[in-house]
């Protein structure tokens, strides 16, 4: 599974991307975030307050109950500010 971080989430995570292999019980976005928090470090800090974070799976916005697994691309980022 490929994780991407953008903007201040990237800065807090300390990296722009990483490959991870979460345990089999991680089945959705909420489970993935819980696992990343338990792992500690920059990504755990970046995902501390979910009100500030948006999630996309395979480049589409999703809610916390969206399934994840296999070779999914999961991105975490702040509310967007383009335009």
């Amino acid at each position, binding site marked *: 599974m490929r994780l991407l971080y*953008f903007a201040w989430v990237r800065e807090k995570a300390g990296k722009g991307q990483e490959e991870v292999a979460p345990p089999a019980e991680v089945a959705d976005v909420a489970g993935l975030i819980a696992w990343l928090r338990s792992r500690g470090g920059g990504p755990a800090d970046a995902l501390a307050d979910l009100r500030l974070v948006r999630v996309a799976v395979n480049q589409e916005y999703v809610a916390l109950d969206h399934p994840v697994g296999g070779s999914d691309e999961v991105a975490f*980022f702040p509310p967007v500010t383009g335009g």
Partner: protein
Amino acid sequence: MIRVQQQDFDVAAELAALPAAGGICVFVGTVRDVSDGRPVAAMTLEHYPGMAERELARLEEEAQGRWPLAGVAIVHRYGRLQPGERIVLVAVAAPHRAAAFEACRFLIDRLKTEAPFWKSEETAGGARWVAARREDAAAAERWDS
């Protein structure tokens, strides 16, 4: 027509590429020189390559479904930009000007809350990520149907 690019764009060339249809409404957003009262030295736009293009294409498709349009062009830049530089162009050609205006405003309103770009401003106080604006969320919600 959707493009996400680092280099500047030529407004006249973008408009010339649209089908002639009676009217074209265009919005061009530029880097402000002041933010919250503080002079801005530069702005850096980060984006999510791939998803940025997909979101813009999805918005174009939604606009085409809501209004009878002849053509749409969206160009969004990323990278480090100086005050006054162009950031984004949204252009809509349509047989009727009401549709051109409404679709153009729909696209820029929704782009601002949905397309994955993030602005970081450099001021005398250092660099800081621009926070999402409540007014932008309200402007985008006006289009919820």
